[in-house]
């Protein structure tokens, strides 16, 4: 009995074991990567629309919104592709984390200001409206990106596959 108790105390917390499992981290990585690639595809093709959505937030000077839209759309795309293929995964997850922090703050300010606008999150055809649910969704994504940053092992990632092949040859 005493031995079993000691063993269970030494064993990993089941939740931690799941959250840090390489397959779970892989699923999160691919999910976030695919989500960001999907959400940025239209924006990369037509950044003007994203600029309009950005102006609706009224957080940036109008003069900066076009540049912001260009950089944002490509940041989402680049970070998404890197996550999807497992290239510099922790850094890509960090980029996603930074972007999500910015999105969440921007959405929170609309809630505080009583603004209800299309969030501009996904395709250019509009998206969910800003509000508490979006903040909650972003918090989940933030947590997911943190898990990838912290526990990524390179499992089935391009970086690791390439480095292994280079090591073998």
């Amino acid at each position, binding site marked *: 009995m005493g031995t079993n108790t000691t063993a269970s105390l030494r064993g990993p917390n089941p939740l931690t074991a799941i959250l840090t499992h390489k397959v779970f981290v892989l699923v999160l990585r691919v999910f976030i990567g695919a989500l960001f690639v999907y959400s940025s595809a239209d924006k990369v093709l037509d950044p003007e629309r994203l*600029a*309009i959505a950005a102006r609706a937030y009224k957080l940036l000077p109008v003069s900066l919104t076009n540049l912001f839209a*260009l950089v944002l759309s490509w*940041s989402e*795309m680049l*970070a998404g592709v890197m996550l999807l293929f497992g290239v*510099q995964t922790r850094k*890509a997850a960090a980029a996603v984390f930074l972007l999500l922090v910015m999105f969440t703050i921007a959405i929170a300010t609309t809630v505080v200001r009583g603004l209800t606008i299309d969030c501009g999150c996904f395709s250019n055809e509009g998206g969910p409206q800003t509000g508490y649910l979006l903040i909650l969704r972003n918090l989940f994504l933030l947590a997911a990106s943190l898990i990838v940053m912290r526990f990524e092992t390179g499992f089935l990632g391009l970086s690791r596959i390439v480095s292994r092949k280079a090591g073998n040859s």
Partner: protein
Amino acid sequence: MKFVEDLMGGFLIILAAGVIAIAQNAVRDDKIPLVPKAPASVSKKPYTSPSSSENSVPAPKQSGGAVDRVGKGATPVLLTEEELASGEVSRERVKGLLEGGRIVLIDARAAGEYETGHIAGAISVPYEALAEHYDGLMQRAPLDAMVVCYCRSVTCEDSENLARELKFMGYRNVVTYKGGWDEWSQAGYPTESSNPGE
């Protein structure tokens, strides 16, 4: 420490994306200016009335008091479910709603076309120059206003494009009048011009 390093790496990825974005924008056919044209809100002309010839947006009041808003008090019940679903309204409906002063009618054509002649009571927000008119429009038309966009005729796309942008900006009740300027003017309905002497 590793966390900070990763964040710095993430920041570098965003910077790299910025370089790619600017380079890609420079070579694309439909590139956007890095800095949008300055908002035309330098106009000090106050808004007077929907039938005024000073209807080009923006023209916010510059001092004291609330800014006049077109379409104020409009409610979503003005348009039928069918109209909102199809996103279109007929000429007669536009006429009736306009006479009641219950809608914001937006001319999506170029400013020059608007000045030559437009539907009486329409304001000018050229689709191609929406960025310039953005602030003025947001100041003058509440997001719950009934907005009707039109352009030249059934074959033009500016009204539909503008309607989509307005929805993106947060306007909830936006439809188009497909017949546009050609149909309206040929029917002999009220028009006006912004050019003196016309």
